[in-house]
């Protein structure tokens, strides 16, 4: 029948995937914020899934890494997933991840996490120094060396 098919197609078109909205709060380039003008948004075909705010996203990840008995697998899974997203994680998430490394007695992973953050920033050279600046108290407290201090930033 033509009718069910056309409604299905219509529904599918309405459900077309949303343009991946940027979650990272570290915008070093101009990005339209998620609360842009409602008029323009209404015409787009965003998905009907609930849209998580940046704060909720950050809080969720901080909670994940703050789990007191986090295990090595969860740390790896969390970090690899987080690095897969199209954003540079907020310093507070990295802070929680570093503390998780401390609980797991894993200094190497802590340094690797910092390297990954720098790599995620890509051409935006001002993001990484900002993150390190924000993390400086934690780095000193835990005794985590930055890759630069160990000469790992040179090939």
């Amino acid at each position, binding site marked *: 029948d033509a009718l069910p098919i056309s409604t299905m197609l219509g529904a599918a078109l309405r459900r077309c995937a949303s343009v991946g909205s940027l979650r990272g709060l570290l915008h070093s380039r101009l990005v339209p914020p998620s609360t842009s003008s409602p008029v323009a948004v209404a015409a787009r075909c965003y998905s009907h899934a609930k849209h998580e705010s940046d704060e909720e996203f950050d809080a*969720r990840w901080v*909670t*994940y890494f703050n789990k007191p008995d986090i295990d090595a*697998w*969860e*740390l*790896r*899974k969390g*970090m*690899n*997933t987080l*690095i*897969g997203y199209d954003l540079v994680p907020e310093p507070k998430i990295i802070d929680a991840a570093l503390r998780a490394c*401390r609980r797991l*007695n*894993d*200094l*190497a*992973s802590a*340094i*690797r*996490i910092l*390297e*990954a953050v*720098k*790599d995620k920033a890509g051409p935006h050279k001002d993001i990484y120094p900002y993150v390190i600046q924000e993390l400086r108290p934690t780095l000193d407290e*835990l*005794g*985590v*060396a930055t*890759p630069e*201090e*160990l*000469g*790992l*930033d*040179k*090939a």
Partner: protein
Amino acid sequence: TTLFRSGHARWFRAVSSLSPCPSGVLRADGSGGRMLASRALSLIGKRTLSTSVGLRAHAGVVKVESYTLPSYEDNRAVPLPDVAYVGQLTAEQNALKEKEKGSWTSLNNNEKLELYRIKFHESYAQMNQGSNEWKTVCGGALIFIGLTAFIVLWQRKYVYGPVPHTFSEDWTAMQTKRMLDMRMNPIQGFASKWDYDKNEWKK
């Protein structure tokens, strides 16, 4: 808990399938329940089905292939690989690992570097560095393309027979005259380039 964490929990329970389960069936939601169908199945196929007990007993006999085990990889997208780079630690490295359990402020930079190198092979800087291989590849390709020129020339001289007689100067002259006489493509093409009054090519 969040979506992510509940998803992970399901994953984790699926992985721990080798733990003993009373009914012999471990369902995805983690409950080793005593449903009627599964009970009947375990009764019928106790020997044919590979139960969890059976799998464990077989483990000592079968050689584990290295490609089936989690492996190490250096990848920008995967900062923390499944296994550490160095599998077998020396005594000094073991001692260092013990020291790692204490305060990291007591470690000097060399020790921190050593700990890093135990766990990881290449740093991000090393894995991302480019090489000059592209020059070798392009150069090699162009050299071989150049060498084929010799082959083509030799072929032209020794393999191909003579060109047809219709390409000779006399013949092409006669051919051209015939084309002009029959006014081939007189508007924009061949014959349009000939000046019929002056009997020469148009300037």
